[in-house]
């Protein structure tokens, strides 16, 4: 168990940012907050540098796409405080067209490739990123394949049956 509770983390965040923390929940015990794109860098900096919270470790950055929502593209950060052994998840939702968010590479070097991966799959523009290129897909790809508008083809398609290929 962690040395500080989710409530303490949330209280500190609320005291510092007030209504900028949009939503909070605890799915499976992991404190999850939602924030706006203009505040994310400030929140990440606070979480990292606050002496008590000390979320010094960036575990992961990834994206998610909810096409039916007003702000469909999500960027999800997982941070970890080694000293307190507590994790936090921060979500930021962005618009569909040219989603853009400040980069976290100034805080953690490790954010570089994680953000490149998120750009590659979801098309999120990380402002100020030193080298925002595709990382796993080919450079001349024009779409962002993890978005929900690109479903995989139906595995039961009749024209893909083995006997058409002599198998």
């Amino acid at each position: 168990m962690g040395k500080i509770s989710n409530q303490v983390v949330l209280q500190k965040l609320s005291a510092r940012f007030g209504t900028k923390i949009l939503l909070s929940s605890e799915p499976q015990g992991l404190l999850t907050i939602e924030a706006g794109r203009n505040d994310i860098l400030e929140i990440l900096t606070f979480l990292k540098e606050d002496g008590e919270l000390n979320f010094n470790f960036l575990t992961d950055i990834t994206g998610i796409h909810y096409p039916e929502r007003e702000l469909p593209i999500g960027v999800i950060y997982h941070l970890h405080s080694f000293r307190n052994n507590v994790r936090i998840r921060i979500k930021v939702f962005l618009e569909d067209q040219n989603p853009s968010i400040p980069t976290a590479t100034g805080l953690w070097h490790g954010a570089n490739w994680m953000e490149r991966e998120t750009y590659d799959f979801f098309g999120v523009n990380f402002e100020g990123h030193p080298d925002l290129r595709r990382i796993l897909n080919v450079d001349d790809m024009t779409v962002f394949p993890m978005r929900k508008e690109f479903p995989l083809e139906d595995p039961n398609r009749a024209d893909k049956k083995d006997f058409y290929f002599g198998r």
Partner: protein
Amino acid sequence: MNQPVIVNNQERKETTTLNLGPTHPATHGVFQNVLEMDGERIVSGVSTIGYIHRAFEKIAEHRPFYQITPLTDRMNYCSSPINNMGWHMTVEKMLGIKTPKRVDYMRVIIMELARISDHLICNGILGVDTGAYSGFLYLMEKREHIYEIYEEICGARLTTNIGRVGGFERDFNDIAWTKIRKFVKDYPPVLKEFEELFTRNRIFMDRTQGVGAVDAETALSYSWTGPILRACGVDYDVRVNEPYSSYEDFDFDIPVGTTGDVYDRYMVRNEEMYQSIRIIEQALDMLEREPKGVFHADVPEIFLPPKEEVYNNMEALIYHFKIVMGEVDSPKTEVYHCVEGANGELGFYLVNDGGRTPYRLHFRRPSFINYQLYAPMSRGMLLSDAIINMSSLNVIAGELDA
């Protein structure tokens, strides 16, 4: 690239562009490093990855939970049971399934065997890359023994598909238990012999000490985890910090290094193998006290029925079909679960909307994150040092690209 470098006022040199990879034998996988060389020294480098990217996260969005298992096997294929178990534990965490202690201990045994098989390959290859082949051969025989254990348990050797949600497909048979006990007894002397070949070997020490040294702060900033982070002196291990599968019941040490160089990474992995043996021995003892024959949680709506019942019992056939096709009640939630993979924190971020398949599944792959520092840290190194530096990072291409 190919920029003239002014060494002093008189002399002008041109750098050479060298492609290390994508399929260079010394890279142990399909990834490319475009290096700018000044003689044998690396001036700068750019890493390119994605050559075997197989879109696992996208495929996972179209598959029910059981059908995702084979994808996880193919990430870190040197220790696929850890990937397997990690995935199944993530699903269990989401569904709120509690596994019996005996299952936990059996999982610990398999995961530690997988860790040993991964570390022994990594350290063996490190020896090969410094020019010593025999140590690798000593250890390969032992990896074969681990694969034989997998084979007894699930029929497969490399991509094991060894677990199920809630436990294992079947109980380990007597031959498997005998082989595990034999392995635990036989392995430490072989490892000791391997250590005697390398640890105090002058050539090995000269080749590895001070090479690729990374300080703890840089390692943390680059989100490093696993043995390479511990070699820098940070004692972060998921097994201790957030115990899963009853790791809290075991008594073991977390070896840490001081310098964070290739030699320390080698030492940390070696010591971890001894600790893994220690854990397996304890698990074998603890299993004696657990009720025999329990190999899965009592969750018939999630756990696949035994094959012989599926063939002869209508009810079992219906359950089997429903489970495989993902017709399982699951909550709308999201879960992050991580395990200590052989090369770092292997995390599964699963967002479920209650449908047949995950809404989103993201793998936090330690190889992907650990490899990021490779090109920056290789600056100023000799090419031959950069090669052993890469082996010491233990980057597995399947996991890097996923």
